[in-house]
């Protein structure tokens, strides 16, 4: 290591110091503790009991709900992430306009995210998705002519409850929109001018300038969306009163973890959490592995 390199490394660790404190003590400690607990039985009230791999064995060989939860979570992720990503990019592109009242539009699109997913929203969603008198089936009936009695039963049906959750998640495009909007500002206008001189039409500009320029942000959004939807909890919790019904069709991993926690099974819920962790980690690692499509203007050269 040359002295310049050493100086840079020292400076880096100064910048990192708040994070390192957090990582080692405030976050690292509890994560390690939880990892240790996954090999134990603990009901909070009585002493911790070390049980080795029992929790993991139980999970993989004797717990159909675990597989069900894993399946439901993957289902939700694979359906909601691509559509949600595409939607929020489109919305961001539209919002990057000089249209009158764009400020208001931006605010409106972000409103559902501001209001969050509390009880107030849950009441509304249940009304929208109601099979007999809900707004969604009413609209379906008006636009497609399908009689209401043959429309999906959404939250009351095992087959349609997950798609209903996916549809719900689209109201949160506002968050993604903001990030893309911020990303769009980082694309130098000179690139568009150059493209125009080369005779590129708008469509070509989108593919050759906008999307490559946005790729670091798209990559970010892809990773965090997948991490986030693998951990979907709030919406399901308020919509199903924490049960994940009907017939476990919306039982997702974190909801299951939470249920086990509420049933006083700290060890088992930690074990579930670490299996979920491995799954998410794997998904993230794969994306980094195949991240050649991401173009960084200011990538650090080794």
């Amino acid at each position, binding site marked *: 290591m040359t002295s310049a390199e050493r100086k840079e490394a020292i400076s880096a660790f100064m910048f990192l110091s708040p994070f390192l404190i957090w990582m080692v003590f405030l976050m690292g400690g509890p994560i390690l503790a939880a990892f240790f607990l996954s090999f134990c039985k603990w009901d909070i009230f009585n002493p911790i009991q070390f049980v080795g791999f029992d929790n993991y064995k139980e999970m993989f060989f004797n717990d159909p709900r675990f597989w069900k939860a894993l399946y439901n979570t993957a289902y939700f992720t694979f359906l909601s992430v691509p559509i949600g990503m595409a939607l929020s990019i489109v919305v961001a592109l539209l919002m990057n306009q000089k249209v009158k009242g764009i400020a208001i539009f931006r605010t409106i699109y972000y409103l559902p995210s501001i209001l969050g997913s509390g009880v107030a929203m849950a009441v509304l969603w249940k009304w929208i998705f109601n099979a007999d008198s809900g707004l969604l089936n009413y609209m379906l009936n008006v636009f497609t002519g399908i009689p209401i009695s043959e429309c999906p039963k959404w939250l009351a049906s095992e087959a349609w409850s997950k798609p209903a959750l996916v549809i719900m998640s689209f109201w949160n495009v506002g968050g993604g929109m*903001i990030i893309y909007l911020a990303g769009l500002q980082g694309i130098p206008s000179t690139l568009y001018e150059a493209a125009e001189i080369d005779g590129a039409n708008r469509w070509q500009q989108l593919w050759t300038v906008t999307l490559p320029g946005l790729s670091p942000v798209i990559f970010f959004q892809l990773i965090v969306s997948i991490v986030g939807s693998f951990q979907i909890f709030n919406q399901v919790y308020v919509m199903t009163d924490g049960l994940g019904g009907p017939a476990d069709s919306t039982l997702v991993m974190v909801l299951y973890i939470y249920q086990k926690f509420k049933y006083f099974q700290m060890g088992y819920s930690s074990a579930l959490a670490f299996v979920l962790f491995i799954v998410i980690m794997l998904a993230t690692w794969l994306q980094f592995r195949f991240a050649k499509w991401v173009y960084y203007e*200011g990538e650090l050269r080794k």
Partner: protein
Amino acid sequence: MTDTTIPSPTAAPNGFWASKRRTENVTRWTVFVVLVVGSITMLLPVVWMLITSFKTRADVFAVPPPNSTFFQTLKFWIPIPPHPENYPQAWTVSGMYSGDSWSFFGIPVQGITFTTYTLNTLFIAVCGCLGTTLSSSLVAFAFARLRFPGRGPLFLLCLATMMVPTQVTMIPTFILFRNMPAFLGGPWYNNFFPLVVPAFLGGGAYNIFLMRQFFMSIPYEMDEAAKIDGCTNFGVFWRILLPLCKPALTTVAVFSFLWNWNDFLNPLIYLDSNSKKTLALGLTNFVSLYGQDYQLLMAASLVISLPIIVMFLAGQRYFIQGIATTGLK
């Protein structure tokens, strides 16, 4: 807060749709129509909450009589006469128990209302927002711009913290915070330390990652030029990169403020005294085992969101204040 520093108000926002073509008008109208249709969908929750907040408890779930005409139905959904008194009631009813008191600047105040909750929430959200924005950009700068051994693995480790569900780290974290030594302000329980301090220590993997991506999309030549001019690493960070990343900074600020404003789980676990509770906790006063006052819940929810909506409306222009307007060639 006028933007005297922004040189060219005529500069069009750059981007896909913004290229200067004469066919613009048609596109603009299409865009406008699409936006309006989308807006109606997005407004649905708010409008419904607004309507509900002006109803009486009994009317919240009432349905129109059979065979009503369209207008009869419409009239039925709209609360006539409206009940604006739900708002002051929501503001005072929750948490108003005799015997409760709190103090502001040492002056004791009788009775706890949403005013108490608002001040508490404001403090937590402001600190959280400030801490997150500052510390996450510092850390992200190191990951994006500085070479040091173990950078890759450390960054992956940072991302990994996002992937452990909070439900399982909650109890170990609580035990840790509860046993924080006195010289660090411990125990971190029934005070704002556990809610505020972590924000100053990196602000979470999400924000660090976000800032890193933005730093990495800024050409490296900028740093080199500044360094030749004698800038230190901190100088590069503070004078060059931060100003260029204003949209990203604003994004982080908005997200962290909103997150702290709406956070329910952490205040629930760490705050005990009624005088220290936050708005999100206060909302649960309308929800109980046996039923809820939806109209008050809606009124309170809307009022609580109002400051954020206004802030966002006023601040959204910072999202489009990018490199173009700060003069990168």
